[in-house]
């Protein structure tokens, strides 16, 4: 399979890349890891006239924490970098749980977190994780930088709010105000398959109480679903069997799964409930050990 013909540019700076996009207009696409874009182009679901490959732009492959704990992930930071990250392992349980579950090990060598969020596939794992953590995307365009909350970033399946001449340069995860716990669970038929269903849970606790909670669902609707009511049911009190059951039920309620070859809608809803329960029960056990 071949993509349609396209012009290809590999700029060495962001300014140059943005200029190229400005001239390329609606028919230009940014290429980072390419693990979603290239398959889409081969299948002719996407036929851009111009590809702006940002892999030669220096200084985008980082992930680092600011002194205040804010985490920044550059547009060329690969899934494999995050999977091996000591920083994530020690400070970001939800992200550390998700990183090894993205696609397969070879795809993880090239694919990027920022690209995955931009791709806005309802079955993309990182979008749920970033949403649950209250993260945002920083975009750069001709007019400068702007920060877009993950909750406002995706407008529908495979659609985001970026202007045609904007590039998503980093994802930002705000610093925790409490102790982080949580996780990511994904049911897949085999390694590398899209999620039958996935759940991201990000908690912060202080003084035994949950002070912030985020829950987001992968692959059970037309876009990534933020289970706001489920998360709110956890805040302002310690985790308990009762609050865990309530949150799991509320999360399953907002899921909008469709029956397909991966399973029935009912089955997927059941998975959501089970995963929320499972992650929260583990988080509770971790908190007890820490106390």
């Amino acid at each position, binding site marked *: 399979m071949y993509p349609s*013909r396209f012009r290809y540019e*590999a700029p060495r700076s962001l300014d140059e890349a943005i200029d190229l996009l400005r001239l390329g207009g609606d028919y230009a696409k940014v290429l980072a890891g*390419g693990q979603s874009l290239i398959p889409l182009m*081969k299948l002719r679901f996407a036929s851009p006239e111009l590809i702006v*490959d940002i892999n030669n732009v220096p200084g985008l492959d980082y992930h680092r924490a600011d002194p205040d704990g804010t985490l920044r992930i550059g547009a060329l930071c690969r899934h494999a970098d995050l999977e091996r990250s000591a920083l994530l392992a020690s400070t970001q349980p939800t992200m550390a749980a998700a990183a090894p579950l993205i696609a397969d090990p070879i*795809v993880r060598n090239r694919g990027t977190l920022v690209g995955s969020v931009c791709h806005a596939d309802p079955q993309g794992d990182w979008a749920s994780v970033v949403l649950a953590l209250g993260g945002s995307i920083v975009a750069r365009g001709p007019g400068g930088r702007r920060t877009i909350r993950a909750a406002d970033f995706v407008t529908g399946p495979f659609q985001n709010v970026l202007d045609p001449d904007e590039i998503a340069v980093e994802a930002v995860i705000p610093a925790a105000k409490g102790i982080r716990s949580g996780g990511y669970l994904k049911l897949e038929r085999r390694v590398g398959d899209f999620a039958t269903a996935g759940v991201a849970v990000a908690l912060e606790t202080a003084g035994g109480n949950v002070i912030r909670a985020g829950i987001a669902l992968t692959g059970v609707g037309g876009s990534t679903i933020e289970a706001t009511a489920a998360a709110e049911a956890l805040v302002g009190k310690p985790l308990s069997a009762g609050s865990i059951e309530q949150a799991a039920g509320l999360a399953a309620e907002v899921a909008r799964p469709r029956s397909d070859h991966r399973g029935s809608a009912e089955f997927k809803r059941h998975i959501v409930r089970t995963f929320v329960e499972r992650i929260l029960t583990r988080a509770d056990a971790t908190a007890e050990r820490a106390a």
Partner: protein
Amino acid sequence: MTIVYEDHDDQAASDVPVRRIRFTINGQKKIAEVETRLLLAHLIRQGLKLTGTHTGCDTTNCGACTVLVDGRAVKSCTMLAVQADGHEITTVEGLATASELHPLQEGFKEEHGLQCGFCTPGMMMAAKALLDSNPDPTEEDIRWALSGNLCRCTGYQNIVKSVLWAAEKLRSQ
């Protein structure tokens, strides 16, 4: 090097986007002129006539086309040939020397790690990337590292044994 493209009569030849790239493959420096949409797998197979790299599914699932790009395993059907510009590619042909098989190749032979052999080049390249970073992997490490490579014959058991065999031989060298 010449690559002949399909002509769909839809564009003047001079309008077909082409780029000149410079890269290293199995230690040899090359310059190629490639159509921008050419996939790395096709540059390797059709341009360089290195047909050890197989294209299986062509949809980023099977891993038969796995090669190393700057030492990292990559599915070459999911990377553009133009993106190889300035990079170092290793294919399965880069494993053996003129006189000796690579321990991975020996391992697959000794432990019967292949049946039809279609997935084998991809398995070996993914295994090479693993052993380069982890010379003493557990069976679990190997299964994890090869989980992006599909085999429809062996049931994986002997592939894992082959990689363990190779790891031991490499450690003893």
